């Protein structure tokens, strides 16, 4: 594996750990509602600071259930991820098809010669 690929995998691992560890170590256990959204907590804090405050406008459309809401969030993430993935796909393909796009230092060289690949490191007995 190339060094840059290793670093990229370590980055992904670090992000996963940062998100998973609070849950694994039960950092939400001291709360009535573990891992509630910060936005919701802010609403509660507003009510504490100003008990008389009444929101003067309500959302035009509210997802009728938590399921639908999480579905729409998934849709938002999927749309974004689709576009990002498409962009990387296009860029990669363009680079592969470009005749002289070998200006990247970490570009893999031409594939191994099939004839050379056939002669693997054969251990010859009696050497």
């Amino acid at each position: 594996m190339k060094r840059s690929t290793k670093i990229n995998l370590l980055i992904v691992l670090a992000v996963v750990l940062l998100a998973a560890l609070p849950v694994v170590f039960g950092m939400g256990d001291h709360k009535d509602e573990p891992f509630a959204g910060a936005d919701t907590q802010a609403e509660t804090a507003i009510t504490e600071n100003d008990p008389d405050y009444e929101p003067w406008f309500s959302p035009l459309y509210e997802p009728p259930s938590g399921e639908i809401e999480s579905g729409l969030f998934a849709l938002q993430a999927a749309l974004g991820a689709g576009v990002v993935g498409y962009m990387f796909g296009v860029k990669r393909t363009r680079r592969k098809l470009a005749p002289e796009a070998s200006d990247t230092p970490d570009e893999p060289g031409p594939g191994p010669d099939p004839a050379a690949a056939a002669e693997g490191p054969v251990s010859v007995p009696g050497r």
Partner: protein
Amino acid sequence: MHIAEGYLPWEHAAAWGVASAPFVVHGARALTREVRNRPENTLLLGASGAFSFVLSALKIPSVTGSCSHPTGTGLGAILFRPPIMAVLGTITLLFQALLLAHGGLTTLGANVFSMAIVGPWAGYGAYRLARSLLDRRGGTMPLDVAVFAGAFVADLSTYCVTSVQLALAFPDPDSGFPGALAKFGGIFSLTQIPLAISEGLLTVLVVRLLRQSSRGDLIRLGVLTDARPVREEEKSK
């Protein structure tokens, strides 16, 4: 960082709207100019907006025992400069306000100000500062560190602004603004620190992948300086 619909007094909501509007208009101009003059960047521009879409849809648990989400605005600010992110961030916020009841139309001005204006500008500033300090070292390390700094600051500053906005609107009955700032800061900014680290790392990852797949684009955008002369035909790709 989403101040819920109706949860800002109307004077505050209007003031933040007025403060945000010029940035968004200026950003819209910058965006149309970019698309018209450099159509070859459109794909990357779309991906920068999409990156913000993905990240702001992810609710990530944090050490404070609550969940929050990253903003994803650092990447676009670094690649295309902050004005363009004012528009792309606004689009993301509108989507969430209209479809997810997350944030709102009355609080859009305040939310745009934190996520699409202050975040990108602060992040861009951190990125430029880190580059000016590190670029002499050469290699790829300075870019990675600067991108991390930019995305981290863009994320965290967004949530600090939200805390200030809410503390201004809802001062603590006993301790006034400072007490409220500590309270909202505890809810938002503290929770956000590990998330900002995650966002920094993810943005570095995207830029590293871009460096492999679209080196020419990064050179054209001035993110990479090429030691080797770029051939004309590659520039036109």
